[in-house]
């Protein structure tokens, strides 16, 4: 799965997610990605999330919208992302990863698996990583 979230100069927020799905899935199996609120969600008033991971688990907790609910209650992008992933892990034992952004441009990359490739661009700086805890930067 691949995805992106963005806030443009006018403050409009969007998300996009795309996937080939799960390895050796049954023919016709559809995962979380095309399900609004699970594979992705965007609202100018709250923020945007794009998700990846075990699709059946992500759908059960509607992970993208769940994270934005936490942000509506005042949680930061980091805390909301961690709360959503922790709920998915404790409630349905699912692993996954998310990229999250809010209307002011605060962003977070969180994942409960060991790896997720990610990159972010803001203020002419490129941020990127792969393993838990990695965060490299270089100038754009």
């Amino acid at each position, binding site marked *: 799965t691949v995805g992106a979230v963005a*806030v443009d100069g006018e403050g409009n927020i969007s998300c996009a997610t795309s996937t*080939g799905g799960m390895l050796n899935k049954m*023919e016709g199996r559809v995962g979380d990605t095309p399900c609004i609120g699970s*594979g992705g969600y965007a609202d100018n008033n709250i923020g945007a999330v794009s998700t990846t991971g075990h699709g059946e688990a992500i759908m059960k907790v509607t992970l993208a919208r769940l994270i934005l609910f936490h942000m509506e209650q005042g949680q930061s992008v980091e805390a909301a992302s961690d709360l959503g992933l922790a709920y998915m892990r404790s409630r349905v034992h699912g692993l996954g990863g998310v990229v999250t952004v809010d209307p002011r441009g605060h*962003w977070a990359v969180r994942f*409960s698996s060991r790896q997720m490739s990610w990159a972010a661009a803001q203020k002419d700086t490129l941020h990127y990583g792969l393993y838990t805890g990695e965060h490299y930067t270089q100038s754009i």
Partner: protein
Amino acid sequence: MLPVVVVHGGAGQIPKERSEMSTAGVCRAARAAYSILQGGGSSMDAVVEAVSLLENDPSFNAGCGSVLNVKGEVEMDAIVMDGKMLRSGAVSAVRNIANPVQLARLVMDKTSHACLTAEGANQFASAMGVPSVPQESLITEYSQMRWKKNLTPDADPVECQMGKMG
């Protein structure tokens, strides 16, 4: 703080020999999306460009490089959502399309539906002039190897794809 774009690949098992390609791919996509934003482009243009680049990159499970279903075929899903009007478009179980995310955007822009699936999505694609591509162009040696490896009765495709907890 604006503009900003954040891009991800898959969460789960990324073999060491593929980690560099994976990181390079997301960095390339983030740079391309960011230059769209810096040029005054919309956040929708930016995220569709980033995801299209990753769909075209065989290192990622989307578009070219998608994992195979149990029959060894490629069925893909994609979604876009615009936060201004809460508009959204998605496709599911679509075949023979190079960039499902661009088709999802057409569903958002050209139909009153939220999602089109399987044969309906493919008919919509041809009605929109989106070219179909041979399935072989979406299949890589790596995806075929993983498919074969997980056909044995004792295989665990979820564990193979997701790996262990971080």
